[in-house]
C-alpha cells in the first residue's frame, strides 16, 4: 500500500487547524495568569467571541469587522471579570466560573436567531501555491490569516515575556504584587490590561471556531475547548512553546481518534475520546518535570487578590 504523501500533509494541516483555537486562548490566558490572575472564564469568553463574530459577519457581511468585533466582545466580557476581581476584589475562581456560565447562557440567547444560517467563506492566504510542493504545500499554504497568527503567537509571547520591559513587568506583578507596587508599578492597571488581552485572544479563538473552522453557529460550539486551553497553560508550566506542543498533541489525537473510530478500531469509543486529554497531560507533565524550572515560571501570586492598604 502506498500512502499518498500529500494526504499526510493534509492530515497534519487539519491537526494544525484544529489546534488554532487552543493556542490562541492558551496564549491569552497565559499572559493573564503570568500577571497573577486566574481567569477560569476562558470557555465563556470564547463562546462570546464565537457568537459575536458569527453574528457580526451575518449582519454586516464584513469579515474584518466581525473578527475585530469578536475580539472586542472578548475584551468587553473580560472587563466585567477585571472590574469584579481587581476593583471589587472578588475571588478569582468563583468569578471566572460565573463568567463561563454567563457566557454560555448569553451566547445561546443571542445565537437563537443564527442557528442554521450558513457561514461565509473566509479568505485564505497563498491559496495559489497550494499544489506547488508535495507534502509541505497543504501545511504551509492556503490558510486564514488567523491560522498564521496563531502559530506565530507562542513565539511572540515567549519573546514578549523574556525580552521586553513590559513582559518583565507582567512577570514581576505575577511574582510579587506587593514588591511591584512598592517599586511604583501600578499592579491593578497591569492586571487589568492582561485580563483584557486574555479576553481579546479568547474572543479571537471563538471567532476562529464559528467563522473559519466550522463556519456556522451551533449552541455551545466551543465544546470544552476553553477548559482544555486552561489545562494547557497549567500543564505547560506557563511556557508558550510548550503550549504549542500540547495544543498540537491534543489536536492531533483528536483527529486521529476520529479516524480510528471511523475505520472501526476495536477500542471502546469512550477510551478513544478520552485519549487526547490523557496523553496531552501526560506528555506535558513529562516534559515539564524540572521542579526548579517550574518554580521559576509559576506566577507565585496566581489567583491571589491584591489590594493596597493605606
Amino acid at each position, binding site marked *: 500500500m502506498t500512502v499518498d504523501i500529500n494526504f499526510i500533509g493534509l492530515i497534519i494541516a487539519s491537526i494544525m487547524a484544529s489546534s488554532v483555537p487552543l493556542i490562541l486562548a492558551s496564549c491569552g490566558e497565559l499572559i493573564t495568569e503570568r500577571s497573577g490572575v486566574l481567569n477560569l472564564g476562558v470557555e465563556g469568553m470564547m463562546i462570546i467571541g464565537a457568537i459575536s463574530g458569527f453574528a457580526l459577519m451575518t449582519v454586516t457581511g464584513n469579515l474584518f469587522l466581525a473578527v475585530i468585533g469578536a475580539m472586542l466582545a472578548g475584551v468587553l466580557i473580560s472587563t466585567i471579570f477585571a472590574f469584579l476581581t481587581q476593583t471589587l476584589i472578588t475571588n478569582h475562581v468563583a468569578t471566572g466560573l460565573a463568567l463561563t456560565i454567563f457566557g454560555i447562557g448569553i451566547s445561546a440567547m443571542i445565537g437563537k436567531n443564527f442557528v442554521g444560517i450558513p457561514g461565509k467563506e473566509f479568505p485564505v492566504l497563498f491559496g495559489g501555491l497550494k499544489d506547488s510542493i508535495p507534502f509541505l504545500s497543504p501545511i504551509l499554504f492556503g490558510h486564514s490569516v488567523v491560522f498564521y497568527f496563531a502559530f506565530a503567537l507562542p513565539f511572540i509571547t515567549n519573546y514578549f515575556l523574556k525580552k521586553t*520591559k513590559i513582559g*518583565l*513587568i507582567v*512577570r*514581576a506583578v505575577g*511574582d*510579587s504584587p*506587593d*514588591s*511591584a*507596587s*512598592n*517599586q*511604583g*508599578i501600578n499592579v491593578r492597571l497591569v492586571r487589568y490590561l492582561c485580563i483584557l488581552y486574555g479576553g481579546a485572544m479568547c474572543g479571537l479563538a471563538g471567532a476562529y471556531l464559528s467563522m473559519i473552522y466550522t463556519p456556522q453557529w451551533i449552541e455551545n460550539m466551543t465544546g470544552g475547548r476553553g477548559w482544555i486551553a486552561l489545562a494547557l497553560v497549567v500543564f505547560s508550566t506557563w511556557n508558550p512553546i510548550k503550549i504549542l506542543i500540547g495544543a498540537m498533541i491534543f489536536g492531533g489525537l483528536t483527529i486521529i481518534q476520529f479516524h480510528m473510530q471511523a475505520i472501526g478500531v476495536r477500542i471502546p469509543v469512550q477510551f478513544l475520546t478520552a485519549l487526547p486529554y490523557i496523553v496531552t497531560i501526560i506528555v506535558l507533565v513529562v516534559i515539564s518535570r524540572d521542579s526548579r524550572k517550574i*518554580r*521559576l*515560571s*509559576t506566577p*507565585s501570586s496566581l489567583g491571589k487578590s491584591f489590594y493596597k492598604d*493605606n
Partner: protein
Amino acid sequence: MRTNLKISNVTKIYPGCIANKNVSLEFESGKIYALLGENGAGKSTLVKILSGVIMPDEGQIFLNNKALKLNSPIDAKKNNIGMVFQHFNLFETLSVFENLIIDSNETRENLRKKIKSIMEKYNFSIDLDIPVLNLSAGQKQKVEIIRCLIRSPEVLIMDEPTSVLTEQETIELFSSLKKFSEEGILIIYITHKLKEVMSLCDEVAVMRKGELVSISKIIDEKIETLANKMVGQNLKTIKKKKLSKVSSDQLIKITNLNFKSEDPFETNLEEINFTVNRGECLGIAGISGNGQSELFQVLSGEIISDKKSIEFNKNFIGDKNPQERREYLMAFSPEDRLEQAAVPQMKIFENVALNNFKSSNFFKNGLINENKIKQHAKKIISDFNVNTNNIELKSQFLSGGNLQKLIIGRELITSPDLLICFNPTWGLDVGAINYIHETLIKINEQNKSIILISTDTDELLKLSDKISVIYKGKLSKKMNADEVTSEKLGILMGGGEFD
C-alpha cells in the same frame, strides 16, 4: 552638598491606634542615624511615610528645605530617597539583573556597566543572571542596596536590615554603610537591636508608642540607658542564672540519631548523642543553617526517626508524631511563630486548642466545646501576660512578643516535663525577651527541663546549664555553661576546636 532631611510634625492614625504622634526629626548627611524602638513603636510607619508607601494624616517632609509630596514609592525614588525594607521587595523568580532593570530607564548595556562598577567599588560579588530565589538573605539585601545605589540616592533608609543576616554578613553590611556615609549619603538605620546602634550609629532617636522620646548622641548613651528609654521602665536585668541543683535523674536520652535529607537545602544530622536531666537547660548554639531546624523537627516528631534513638522518661519515642509526644509530656515552641506554631487566620482561643486534643475535654463527640476553650485561653492570657483581652482576635494581629507568650503559655499550661524551643525570642523587643527568659528560668526551677536551640549566644549563656554547639549537623560535647565564654562558642560555631 550636604543633605538635610526634616520630618515635621508627622502624625498617622490607624483605627484604634496612633502609629505616629507629632513626630519631628532632623537629619544631616555625613552621619549614621539610628531610629530605635520596640516592635510596634511606630518606626516602620515613619519609614513607610518617608518612602511614600503610606501618606501621613498630618505633617510634612522636607528634603534640603524643599517640601516633598510623597504620594507613592516612585515619588520617594524621584527625590533620591532609597529604601531597603525589612521584607525584601524582590521578585524571586526573576534574575538579579531583571530585578534591577525593571525600574530603570537605562539600556541593558549601560545598566550592566553601572552595576558592575558599583559591585567593584563596594566589593559585592553577585551573579547577575541567576534567579533571586537562589541567593542567600545577605545577597538579596545587597541586591536591594544596589538597586538604591543605581539611582545615586541622597538618603538611604535601612529597615531592620540585620534580622535576616548572619554575623559575618552583618559585619560586611556595617562596613558598607560606613563607606556610604563617608561618601555623603545620609543613612537612617531602623532597629530594635541596641548593640548595633552602639557600634554603628552616630546619633540615635528613640520612639515609644508612636512618640519620639529622645534624640541624643551615641557617645552620651549606654546600652542600659537606651534600653530604658525604649521600654519606658527600668528593666530588671536578669542575672545569669545560678546553676541550680540539677538532679541526676535523666529525662531524655538521644542515641545515635541520624537524619539524611533529600532536599539539598537541608542539613543532614550525623550521630547526635546527648542527654538532659530533670531541671536542666541544655543550650544548643550554632550559626543558623547548621542543622538546628532539622534537629528541632526530629526532636519534636515532625520528622520521624528510629524508635530507639530517642528515649524519653524511659520510653522509646523516636517513631512517635508530635501529638503522641505531647502525650508523654513534651512541649514544643518552633522557630516560625506564624507558620509553624500558630495558624495566623485563626482566633486566639482556637489556636490555644490546637496542641491539645486528647487529654483535654475541649472536644465532645467531635464537637468543639467553645466555652471550655475560651476559659482556657483567658487563663493563658492572664497567666502569661499576653497583652490583649480579646480572645476572638485573629492570631496574626498579635505582635511577635504577645504571640510568643501565647505559644509558650499554651505549651506550658499542661505542665510538660520538657520544653523544646527554637529561637524563642527571635525578633522580639526587650520587654518580651525578658519575660520569656524569666519564664524559662522558672520552668527550670520547677525541676522541668528545657532544650533551647538558639542562634543568640547571649541568650544561651544566660539561660543554659550545659551548652553544645551544632556545626554542619554534628553536635559538640556538652560543656558546663559557667566554663564557656562567647569566644569559645565562636570557635566551635565556626567549625574550630580547642581543648
